[in-house]
């Protein structure tokens, strides 16, 4: 599974111990790969350094601000939400993974395919749809008020955000767990059964422990996602760091406080990654036999349990996929029906912009990621592995923070590039480069070194071995990484809002401004377009992953 591998790789890189303390070689510094990597890494870290400077300008004032009761409340909110979403996404992800891989659930293929699809819906669009459904003047409220139900529990605040982000992130747990389940050696479970353990106790004592790395990865990713999510918390009015940062950024004439808050968010994200690394290193999993074990255990017969199981899956897909799509489709129908707006001419430009900027970023990021992945593979280079590890930091940083840092930095030091495409693409690249490196790395890990040795023994110089032997072998991995980057850029909101050149609109910014002006009929079509694009990219990635799993 490249998709999950990308996620897993990124955490694995961070947790790996540096290869035995070799001394830095002078040659390291001269190699073009190292120079390239050093340039890329400093490009991505410079803005952060500037953010730090900007925040410290406030001096003790900023510390007083941070320690105010209000900000401590924001901190508590962020942590509470991240933990809650990680937990609920894990429960949902585990259940769906187990039901679709290990049981005789009816319509298995349908659930297999639709299970990860909520991932194609950006959480801020999900939030817009849920406000329309469950909000104070929403569809459900209007349907219920004739029955005497005056007020639904409010969608705004913690419960609403929790529900919405969970619904659109549980696939981050589902995918790695499902992959891990498929790779498990059934012999261990069978042995435990033969020793008299009940099915339940086998699950708890044998299966679950082996799934822990996958679960840990998925949990980390959902928690990070929640910390950095901006659109859903803003729309559903839950005061987390991203919302507080954006509020400071947009409603105050002075942005020092936004910078201070952003630094705290960076610290939170880094703590999370470190925590996960500590946990994970104590949870190495072992199994007997080689990776060629593809034998699957017999399916569990659900019996009467299949009814609640079906209801659960149908409800999940209904809530995570059908309901939001139905809301968007009704708005789209409204817009097309009314015909009042020049719908197509208004949308052609943003749609083209999204496609072009995502494609260009995907290509550039893949080209940048490849040398870094090759560098990470060179075991002899501690400097190289450090550089790559630093490059991985980007993906743990919220898009809003990266954008903020770049705005500050470019406005002061790069006026020529400020509000231009290179800065926007740099912002995307800092955030999504790790996805590309990860995908390429996991493809590289599968390359049998004997091909490359054969190349060398036939007299090819090192770089030619890379280009003529290794590259063709890892091409699927690189393309998978590129598709991932494309998908994520197309969905990205906060960095796009802050960094896009003046007048440059994408589907996400178009949807955002339409909803800000409460023109819901203009949300439908661009949102559906965006989701269709995402779903396409996602299904390409997943289909290839399934292919590589079988082969």
């Amino acid at each position, binding site marked *: 599974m490249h998709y999950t591998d990308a996620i897993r790789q990124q955490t694995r890189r961070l947790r790996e111990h540096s290869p035995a303390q070799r001394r830095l070689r002078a040659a390291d510094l001269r190699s073009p790969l190292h120079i390239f990597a050093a340039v890329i890494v400093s490009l991505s870290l410079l803005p952060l350094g500037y953010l730090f400077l900007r925040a410290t300008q406030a001096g003790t004032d900023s510390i007083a601000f941070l320690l105010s009761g209000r900000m401590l409340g924001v901190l508590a909110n962020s942590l509470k939400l991240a933990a809650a979403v990680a937990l609920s996404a894990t429960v949902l992800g585990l259940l769906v993974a187990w039901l679709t891989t290990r049981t005789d659930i009816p319509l298995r293929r349908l659930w297999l395919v639709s299970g990860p699809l909520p991932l194609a819906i950006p959480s801020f669009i999900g939030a817009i749809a849920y406000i329309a459904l469950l909000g104070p003047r929403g569809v459900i409220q209007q349907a219920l008020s004739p029955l005497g139900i005056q007020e639904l529990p409010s969608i705004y605040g913690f419960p609403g955000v929790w529900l919405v982000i969970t619904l659109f992130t549980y696939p981050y747990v589902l995918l790695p767990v499902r992959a891990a389940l498929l790779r498990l050696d059934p012999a261990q479970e069978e042995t435990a059964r033969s020793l008299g353990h009940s099915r339940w106790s086998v699950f708890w004592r044998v299966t679950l422990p082996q799934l822990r790395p996958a679960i840990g990865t998925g949990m980390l990713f959902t928690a990070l996602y929640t910390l950095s999510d901006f659109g859903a918390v803003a729309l559903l009015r839950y005061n987390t760091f991203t919302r507080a940062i954006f509020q400071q950024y947009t409603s105050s004439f002075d942005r020092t406080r936004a910078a201070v808050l952003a630094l705290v968010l960076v610290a939170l994200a880094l703590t999370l990654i470190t925590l996960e690394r500590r946990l994970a290193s104590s949870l190495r999993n072992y199994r007997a036999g080689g990776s060629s074990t593809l034998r699957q255990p017999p399916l569990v017969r659900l019996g009467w349990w299949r009814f609640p199981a079906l209801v659960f899956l149908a409800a999940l897909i209904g809530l995570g996929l059908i309901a939001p799509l139905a809301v968007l489709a009704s708005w789209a129908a409204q817009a097309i029906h009314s015909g009042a707006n020049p719908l197509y001419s208004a949308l052609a430009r943003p749609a083209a912009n999204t496609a072009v900027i995502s494609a260009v970023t995907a290509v550039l990021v893949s080209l940048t990621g490849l040398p870094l992945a090759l560098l990470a593979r060179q075991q002899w280079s501690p400097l190289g592995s450090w550089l790559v590890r630093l490059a991985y930091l980007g993906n743990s940083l919220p898009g809003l923070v990266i954008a903020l840092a770049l705005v500050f930095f470019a406005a002061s030091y790069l006026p020529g590039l400020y509000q231009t495409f290179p800065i926007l693409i740099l912002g995307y690249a800092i955030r999504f480069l790790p996805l590309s490196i990860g995908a390429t790395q996991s493809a590289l890990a599968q390359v049998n070194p004997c091909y490359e040795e054969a190349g060398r023994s036939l007299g090819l110089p090192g770089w030619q071995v890379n280009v003529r032997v290794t*590259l063709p072998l890892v091409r699927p991995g690189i393309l998978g990484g590129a598709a991932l980057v494309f998908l994520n850029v197309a969905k990205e909101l906060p960095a796009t809002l802050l960094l896009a050149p003046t*007048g440059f609109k994408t589907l996400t910014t178009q949807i955002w401004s339409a909803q800000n002006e409460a023109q819901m009929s203009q949300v439908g079509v661009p949102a559906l377009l965006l989701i269709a694009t995402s779903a396409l990219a996602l299904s390409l990635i997943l289909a290839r992953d399934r292919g590589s799993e079988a082969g």
Partner: protein
Amino acid sequence: MSRKSALILSLALLATATLPSLAQDSSEHLVVYSGRSEGLIAPLLEQFVTETGITVDVRYGSTAEMAATILEEGENSPADLFIAQDAGALGALAAAGRLLPLPSDILERVPAAYRSPQNLWIGLSGRARVLAYNTTLVNEATLPASILDLASEAWAGRVGWAPTNGSFQAHITALRVLLGDDATRNWLAAMQANRTVAYDNNRAVLQAVIDGEIAAGLINHYYLYPFLDVNPALPVRLYYFPEGDAGSLINVAGVGIVNTTHQPGLSQRLILYLLGRSAQQYFATATYEYPLVDGVDPDPRLTPLNLIAAPVIDLSDLADLQTTLDMLAETGVLP
């Protein structure tokens, strides 16, 4: 490298090379930072582009966001003009020395109360702060003499406002200027204790008044008329606090030329266009604001500006937004 990768590489380079050219590059070109929403100002600017051939790029955001952006950008700001929803943001830029003085042929088009005393910005349209009330829930005779009375027991839980809205925040800044910080803080705390209901924006406040969710709400005057266009019989009226009470602030949406502009002449042309008859007429009919130049009348349903007993205030003094934001947070009005 395979031929295919070479092709992809060259395509990528080509794409990066052509991307910047998507942005227009012309000597007759203006960059506008707009705190007014796109739906509202874009048609006017498009009209300007068609009539003059000058191209205009607009960056949209909240008024405070755009002001902060210009301050942050310093000498590197690409902005030529700043269009703001309220005078406070213009005052802040003026105080920071970021606006260029305007020539008298522009200034004299608008009454002195609606432009900068230092000639650094000018109002484009007027907007009155009002109390919208539901006539089935509020007896006209019981309407309060002052905005301060809304903190009284009689109005507990019956009033709505929009604390995150820029116009609301500017109004609170005006209260601070007119009544002092302590009185304003006390009033905010009393309103909060009086269970005043917070909404996302003016429109939501008004909708709640129409629905009878609340009896009255503090909004800008012009939000009512689109609702009346759909249903003239709505049980909602606007109330102007009498006798120069701080509640009846008249603020303006306005414009200033950023001091780093390379196009002062073109910028002035755009301002003149926005003060021209057709643009002012547009503000009157499309947004129901008060036109500020002579000879253009507001919508006949509006209370004429000269009949509103607004408090006397220098709108440039509304520049200190940060203290207002802190006060709103301190009193729990803002989350």
